[in-house]
């Protein structure tokens, strides 16, 4: 069997942002008629690679070859014209227009400047029909559920240039997390369409956080970690454990001594109890208990539902069903205020958009939660406030140690510490940390982990979410394992629990 020519070849791709090297010399190949998975955790460089490919970002180094010719795209439009189409997680269509218009807008059939609606609808209907979909092209897009809108987006992108010649104009179709909010039937319909397009010779690049889906529909995969290529494999050659190992990697274990600490079992009474808590499209109903002074780590891949679980426990999203009791009292969880009043604190993984107010100073950001709880009429007295702020700036070693500095100008690690300080001064009973160590330097990482241990020793319960398994293993008394939006297992930390054990649990998805 002769080696086929790749339709797309990217070699030595480098992309740098101020202070970060997002991609360092990544190679990537895509063959016609294959569905290729791009795998990696947060910060691995997946989305950067896609954005470089689709012309959203410019290249800092390396070459792109499309159909044997060197290519470089300055904008998504140029990439589209060259035959690379993208469908994103959020449907980038106009819900107020009809399906047919969404497929054709920008290249509507016209005669003397007049749009030929009949012809447009007919051609749209034909295209939809040929792809085996049952969609009324005259209906407004918004009358269809998200899943169908997603399919329409695909129809639009493969329809590009279809009228100019025979067959499909698109050579490469990039699907960036199209399945994250679809249910099973909808996913199957999407897969059917993907396979049909593959059989017609389209090269499909597929990003999904659902491992099962990767194994179900993909032929080959490329795995990235920390901006570098760690492997290209045929899907059938690499099992799930191997894949997860490639994605997560083995971090250097410099905090081993902490591990011993977390093996003790003298935990306090139950603090938080969730029963049947769940939210459609977020996480399947789960039961969970967290004891006083316990660190509960959540292990699972990105998109496995770990953030969704945390948000439900904080009332950031409203649960569809289930109930939560904290310290024996039921909490309504209709808004974050309820959770905060019950002593829950939540540091979001999105520091910038959901955590800090970048325009305000370090001091203001630190006292915000405490002040919100006190209400606007009872300001914290200046002396007490300054003393509190100074104490936490010192305790957490926030730099610069200037309470007047604007938070937006601090480095990531220091911003994270400000966020931590904000919640620590409210003296919460349960502290939820969603990827507190993401995107910060190793020194700050270590400090934050040590802090978690000392907080738990003082009796605070912590829900700890991290992408790195070692981190979870090191800090947690108990480990909750998530997979595909379900809490699948709960492991009590002990000598027999290792990263590979957790990996197996994630991969198999069975509770032990």
């Amino acid at each position, binding site marked *: 069997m002769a080696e086929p020519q790749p339709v797309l070849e990217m070699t030595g791709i480098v992309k740098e942002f101020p202070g970060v090297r997002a991609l360092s010399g990544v190679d990537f190949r895509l063959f016609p008629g294959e569905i290729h998975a791009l795998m990696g955790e947060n910060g691995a460089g997946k989305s950067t690679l896609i954005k470089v490919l689709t012309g959203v970002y410019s290249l800092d180094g390396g070459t792109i070859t499309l159909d044997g010719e060197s290519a470089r795209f300055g904008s998504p439009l140029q990439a589209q014209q060259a035959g690379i189409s993208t469908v994103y997680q959020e449907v*980038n269509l*106009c819900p*107020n227009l009809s399906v047919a*218009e969404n497929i054709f*807008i920008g290249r*509507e059939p016209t005669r003397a400047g*007049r749009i030929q609606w009949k012809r447009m609808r007919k051609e749209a209907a034909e295209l939809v029909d040929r792809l085996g979909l049952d969609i009324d092209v005259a209906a407004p897009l918004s009358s269809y559920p998200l899943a169908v809108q997603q399919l329409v987006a695909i129809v639009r992108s493969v329809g590009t240039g279809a009228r100019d010649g025979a067959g499909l104009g698109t050579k490469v179709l990039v699907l960036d997390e199209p399945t994250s909010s679809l249910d099973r039937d909808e996913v199957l319909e999407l897969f059917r369409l993907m396979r049909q397009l593959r059989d017609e010779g389209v090269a499909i690049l597929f990003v999904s956080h659902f491992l099962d889906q990767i194994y179900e529909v993909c032929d080959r995969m490329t795995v990235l970690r920390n901006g570098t290529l760690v492997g290209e494999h045929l899907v059938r050659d690499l099992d799930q454990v191997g894949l997860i190992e490639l994605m997560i990697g083995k971090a250097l274990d410099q905090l081993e001594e902490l591990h011993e600490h977390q093996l003790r079992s003298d935990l306090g009474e139950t603090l938080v109890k969730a029963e049947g808590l769940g939210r459609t499209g977020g996480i*399947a109903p789960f039961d969970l208990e967290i004891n006083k002074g316990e660190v509960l780590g959540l292990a699972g891949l990105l998109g496995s539902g770990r953030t969704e679980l945390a948000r439900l426990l904080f009332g950031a999203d409203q649960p569809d069903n289930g109930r939560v009791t904290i310290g024996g009292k039921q909490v309504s969880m209709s808004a974050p205020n309820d959770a905060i009043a019950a002593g829950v604190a939540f540091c979001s993984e999105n520091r910038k958009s959901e955590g800090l107010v970048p325009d305000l100073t370090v001091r203001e950001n630190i006292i915000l939660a405490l002040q919100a709880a006190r209400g606007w009429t009872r300001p914290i007295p200046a002396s007490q406030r300054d003393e509190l702020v100074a104490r936490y700036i010192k305790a957490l070693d926030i730099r610069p140690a200037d309470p007047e500095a604007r938070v937006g100008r601090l480095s990531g690690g220091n911003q994270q510490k400000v966020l931590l300080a904000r919640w620590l001064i409210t003296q919460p009973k349960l502290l939820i940390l969603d990827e507190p160590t993401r995107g910060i330097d190793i020194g700050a990482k270590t400090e934050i982990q040590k802090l978690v241990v000392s907080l738990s020793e003082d009796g605070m319960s912590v829900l700890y979410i991290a992408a790195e398994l070692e981190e979870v293993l090191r800090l947690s008394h108990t480990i909750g394992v998530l997979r595909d939006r379900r809490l699948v297992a709960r492991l009590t930390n002990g000598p027999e629990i290792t990263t590979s054990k957790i990996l197996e649990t994630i991969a198999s998805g069975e509770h032990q």
Partner: protein
Amino acid sequence: MSATTQTPKAAPRGSTASRARATRLLGDRRLPVLVTAALFIAMYVGGLSRYQNYGFGEPQVFLNLFIDNGYLLVAAIGATFVIMSGGIDLSVGSVIGFTTMFTAWLVERQGLPLLLVVPLALAVGAFGGFLMGYVIHNFEIQPFIVTLAGLFLFRGLCLVISKESISINDASVGTLAQTRVSLGMGELSIGALVALIVLAVACYVLHYTRFGRRVYAIGGNEQSALLMGLPLGGTKIAVYTVSGFCSALAGLLFMLYIQSGDPLHAVGMELDAIAAVVIGGTLLTGGSGYVLGTLFGVLVLGLIKSVITFEGTLSSWWTKIATGVLLCAFILIQRTMTSRRKT
């Protein structure tokens, strides 16, 4: 202390069909226009029964709605383009006032022929709109603020031309203003005819040209429109240019209607125009609506004025209050519709 996991229950599907129908109906973009049209008819029928003996039933009363509101219709059509694209234009009233002043000054004080003045005035209005669109798009400043500057600028230019009102005694203007076109059941003025032509052209442009569809697309979701490869900047600038042009044309019609130029003409008319657009069912956030709806919006506003005139005892300010109440009602309707569409 073991974790149990429950499989997600299948969502109940019993009421899906009827709910889908309700959603469809509420989601139908024609609904607001129909509501406005129905409101208009109801008001008209109400007026008929109440003022039958005062000649409300005369066809000319109906046609007068167009004669008396032709300029507002044109201005509102311009505003429809802007609002449809998700923007707002506060300079409408000022541009109208400026145009009346500008033309009156050129015709009366400078003695230029009307044939030359008209295209000049239209060009100035369109250029003003173009400039505002250019600044809005290229420097990413909120349309609200940029057109606010436009409001100040054109009103100021009015006053720079003259502080006093200039009445127009030009013969050609007089003839144009007096000309009536008979329709059998009544007659229409030149201004009303022009307004109807603009309406037809706007309908065609919005529904049958790529430009028109781009306006809808940008109003629906600007980010998506950009990612779909639509020329965002050109469209936005064009939309404001159209609005400036329409405002200038409305100014000419207003000048024809009132036969004078005055620095305080059409103060606050942008509010009437925006109100007409919203009452006509166009979403203020953009992307949804019809020019035909704007026609009904203008007619409803015009009818309120006529009813108040016929009532006799009601004073003119009831127009403003009624407009505000209608505006409020339609904004709340829009709000419930959009929030329902999301779920």
